[in-house]
């Protein structure tokens, strides 16, 4: 972990409303996109294959398939450009990094999500996450 004084500096820049994310989660990331002066929200949907770092520098790698081509985005969780993150589904995984998904083609890359069933609804967070719950419910 970082120095306590650095944590003190980062504190003001940390988001408090982030849901609990884990590897293998399917998430909707709401990104703020600025075009000229206009700002709009774009949703990037994919699977978290990597969570890295801590504090304000923490990032997640989200992988999705666009037009049969794998697309990965490394997203700093505490960036103001990320408006919201919604967890759609928890995947059953046995690795901390899901890089093996890169080599999988077709249905094979979906299989792992099915382990707990595709219709597994995200369980509403327990006590610790009650603050985040109403946000998710609204969406």
């Amino acid at each position, binding site marked *: 972990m970082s120095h306590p*004084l650095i944590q*003190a*500096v980062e504190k003001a820049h940390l988001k408090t409303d982030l849901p609990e994310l884990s590897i293998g989660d399917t998430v909707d990331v709401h990104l703020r996109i600025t075009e000229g002066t206009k700002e709009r929200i774009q949703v990037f949907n994919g699977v978290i294959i990597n969570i890295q770092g801590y*504090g*304000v520098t923490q990032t997640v790698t989200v992988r999705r398939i666009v037009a049969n081509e794998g697309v990965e985005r490394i997203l*700093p969780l505490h960036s103001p450009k990320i408006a919201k993150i919604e967890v759609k589904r928890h995947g059953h995984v046995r690795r901390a990094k899901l890089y093996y998904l890169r080599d999988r083609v077709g249905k094979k890359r979906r299989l792992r999500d099915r382990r707990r069933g595709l219709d597994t609804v995200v369980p509403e967070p327990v006590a610790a996450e009650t603050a985040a719950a109403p946000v998710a419910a609204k969406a």
Partner: protein
Amino acid sequence: MPAALIGRKIGMTRLNDSTGKNVPVTVIQAGPCHVSQVKTVATDGYDAVQLAFEDVKARNSTMPEIAHDAKAGLTPKREHREFRLKADQLTGVEAGQLFTVEMFEGIRFVDVTGTSKGKGFAGTMKRHNFKGLCASHGTERKHRSQGSIASHATNRGYSGRPKKGKKMSGHLGDERVTARSMEVIGRDKENNLLIVKGAVPGANHGLVVIREATRLYSRKAKLAKAS
């Protein structure tokens, strides 16, 4: 007195500015520093102020240093640094006076001096950014070599030896380096922190000296004037 403090580099992180841009920053513990001695032309031949930083256990200090601090009414301090000043800048500065990071209020750019990380004995490619020799074309075991260093006709005449100051392999790092015109991103009076944009010389926990920037390029000079 112009803004100057002794501090420690705490480490780096990155923060988001108002536009959502990610900014790399260094957190520096700046001060608090006490004035341990005021030097004047009359007493010492030049004008300067000596600042003391960080408490130290008396048993880890030396008698001369403990007595020197005691003369200014201070407890034993670990680090002492002198700052040359002009005579008129000394007015109002007394031994024992306390300076904190509030000194840098309203200052947009600072110079940070530290001791760079030691790299040991380094070749010319790493030390002086030489390009090395060919990867192929018959080059053997000389790919990172510096090439010719001189011949009998150098521009010092027919000396038959390399020119003085020729860039060669040798010790790299562990020397005094000043990072100039670093932008101040924030201050934390409570913890005596100064947050500057970019990297500061030296390892974490290394001693640094922070001063108001002395030379600014036009763009930064304009910004500094505006603030």
